């Protein structure tokens, strides 16, 4: 049985009060509670304050390029589908720079768990606008307020075929833990969008703001209904209301489970191919 300590690397360098602290402890707690240890999980980090968790979390890990964590995670899963693969990314990282990868990872139902630190701002580059910033948000790169409307990660994931779509709030660590555990358990693509206050650069979407504008999905909520999930997810755009919980979960074969090459063993475990006689006929 592993402990939180086993997963703890360097002391985090996040700002005091940053939502990332809550997400960091929630990820470790979830991994411990699932019986995993740093040798049994692969974690791919993007670039940003979120990605800086690379130095604070022990695992077989890649600190990737900005935006590219998802394809790295997909590749790692293809090579060794027996290990859980988690991507720790930011909103600018995953929905901006890596937006195309996000869409296609949903479609492919790749069995990876994507934890997005959604703080509505670029923290590490000192406060420019993010794809999730609300319309009119004033930032160093949009001094007159952003013209674009925010991306809606939940409905985007839903329409692109993600099979597990959840949202949680960094201020409620227990809930983040639950969402992550369910996400890792889920066979297929899982998105956990974590609403994360940036105490330094985002004075709008504060802890207080999220406490006022978010709500937990009721117990009787049916998470297998795509239309209902779309309606709930859309409330973020239309009503500034942020549902928390598993919006949607369905069961479709994960990408790696549809590959007959992986039916018997992981790619890493397989014997070298030697039967070349089988390949010649097309060239004779």
């Amino acid at each position, binding site marked *: 049985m592993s402990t939180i300590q086993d997963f703890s690397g360097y002391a985090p360098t996040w700002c005091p009060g940053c939502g990332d602290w809550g997400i960091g402890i929630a990820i470790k707690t979830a991994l411990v509670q699932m019986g995993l240890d740093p040798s049994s999980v692969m974690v*791919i980090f993007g670039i940003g304050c979120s990605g800086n968790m690379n130095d604070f979390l022990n695992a077989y890990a890649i600190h990737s390029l900005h935006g590219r964590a998802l394809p790295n995670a997909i590749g790692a899963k293809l*090579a060794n589908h027996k290990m859980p693969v988690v991507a720790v990314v930011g909103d600018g990282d995953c929905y901006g720079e890596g937006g195309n990868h996000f869409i296609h990872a949903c479609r492919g139902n790749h069995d990876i768990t994507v934890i997005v630190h959604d703080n509505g701002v670029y923290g590490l580059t000192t406060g420019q606008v993010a794809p999730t910033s609300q319309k009119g948000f004033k930032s160093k790169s949009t001094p007159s307020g952003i013209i674009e409307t925010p991306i809606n990660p939940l409905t985007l994931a839903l329409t692109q075929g993600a099979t597990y779509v959840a949202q949680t709030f960094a201020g409620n660590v227990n809930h983040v833990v639950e969402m992550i555990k369910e996400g890792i358990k889920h066979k297929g693509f899982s998105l956990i969008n974590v609403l994360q206050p940036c105490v330094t650069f985002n004075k709008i979407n504060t802890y207080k703001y999220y406490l006022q504008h978010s709500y937990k999905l009721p117990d009787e909520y049916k998470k297998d209904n795509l239309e209902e999930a779309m309606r709930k997810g859309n409330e973020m755009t239309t009503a500034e209301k942020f549902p928390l919980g598993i919006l949607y979960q369905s069961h479709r074969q994960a990408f790696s489970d549809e590959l007959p090459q992986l039916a018997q063993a992981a790619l890493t475990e397989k014997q070298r191919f030697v039967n070349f006689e089988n390949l010649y006929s097309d060239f004779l």
Partner: protein
Amino acid sequence: MKFTWKIGGEAGFGILTSGLVFSKIANRLGYYTFDYIEYPSLIRGGHNALEVVVSDEEAHALKKDIDFLVCLNEDTYKHHKHRLTSQSHVLYDPDEFVLQEENFIKISVPFKKFLSDLKGLPVMKNTIAMGATLAILGSDLLLISEILEKQFIRKGQEVVDFNKKFAQLGYDHVKQNFPQQIIKDLTKKESEQKLVMSGNDAFCFGSIIADCRVYCAYPMTPSSTVLTTMAAWQEKTGIIVRHAEDEISVINTALGSSFAGVRSAVGTSGGGFALMVESISFAGIAEMPIVIFLAQRAGPATGMPTWTEQGDLLFAVHAGHGEFPKIVLAPGDIEEMVNLTARAFNLADIYQTPVIVMSDMFLSESHKSMAKKFIEELSTTFKIERGKTVNVPTEQKYLRYRVSGDGISERLIPGAKGHFYQVNSYEHVEDGHTTEDAQARRQQVEKRNRKWETYLAKDFEAPKIFGDMNSAEIVFVSWGSTKGPILEAQKMLASQRKNTAYIHFTHLYPMDKGVVVPLFPSGKRYVLVENNSHGQFGKLLLMETGIEIKEKLLKYDGRPFWPEEIVEYTNQHV
């Protein structure tokens, strides 16, 4: 004996397939072939042509005179008539167009009439042409029947027989009407068993021989057939092929699978390669093995997608921001492609860095005969060398980026119990954690740089020299697919009693000055031959060794060199 057979017609009507069928027949009959396709970047309506050089000895390049021209439309004749001689046979349909000229041998074949009489499809013109061709060349229909059988048996015997009828019509027509024009150039002879393979096919064989387990790509001419061949081989070989959403995803998927422990490769052309460049730098600092297949086409930007050029050499050499070791290899023909590709996977694992294998449209899409035993031997003797890749660390405290004398650190496959580590796109200390410390930075930069020194000492291969350097007055210097035309040109020059040598580079970057400089004795006429307009290899050679070649023969019209062109140039500029 050597002749060129060329077939042309409207795009979308099976010209390229029938050309390949002809190559295979010639090989099975005991001959060697080299082919070349010309096609526009569209699916229907343009002009497609394919030519095959057939010889009783190994063929490396094209031959300018066309001996047999099969015109499935008038464009074929118009585009290629300047390459006809008085001995050329031209097969054409008088119902299609009128041939006024008399300065070659005309063989009229009523393609249109045969099709309408039997209600055949337009694509069956090819089958008629194949029958007619085999008749002219004094062969029989045995092999074409076999091929049609294999191709159509799934659709039923009736379809097979229907197709065979068209081959028979073309064959009988020539036999009956042009018996005096029949040249027995393709009668069966004994020869070793051969495979008909393109450069792209050869890359696939090299990869599978080297135990590549993930191939990732986004279609881009002229690399696309690697993707489709690898995809078709998934079931047989167990490789996983991912056609990702863009080239950035392509290379990062492969880097993910490489990190997790399996040999991984990507393939693309210049534009897609450009998208991969940031991640090549990532592979450099994170020290992740990756093999990148770069099949060049005529750029810049979209350029001329279906034509050939060696225009990306310096781009490949310099691809990636920051400083990190990288290895660039360039095969000159399909045998070198198989060898160097397989080797590229070993080098990527040993040096834990990107290895680029360069091709171009001419090498990637031309087919050449390869002795079957060449592949059989290599696939059984090739040794997988993974360098310092381990499943269990040899030292108690595992450090992913441990500073070492040869610059290479142990690479632990993720999953080993009791261990963990991160690979990092940031600069890092020995255990992988991020750093900005000056001393740690220097240590890691120097460690990575030492991998190059180790490579040059252990794995750099000197260029191959063809011909006798001592007696040579003229020395060609080149790399990549120009090899074939230069070798043929050397033969032609030798028959004119001109002694030449050819320095053919395959290990392009980095280069060992101490090894290369002595290969360039003074007092010779050196000619740089490249399929680009900047003389990029010349610049690279100067940069790496200080050798400057002043005389350059450069071609940059999207077409490969004719051996005849090299001969002519050599003789004119004395």
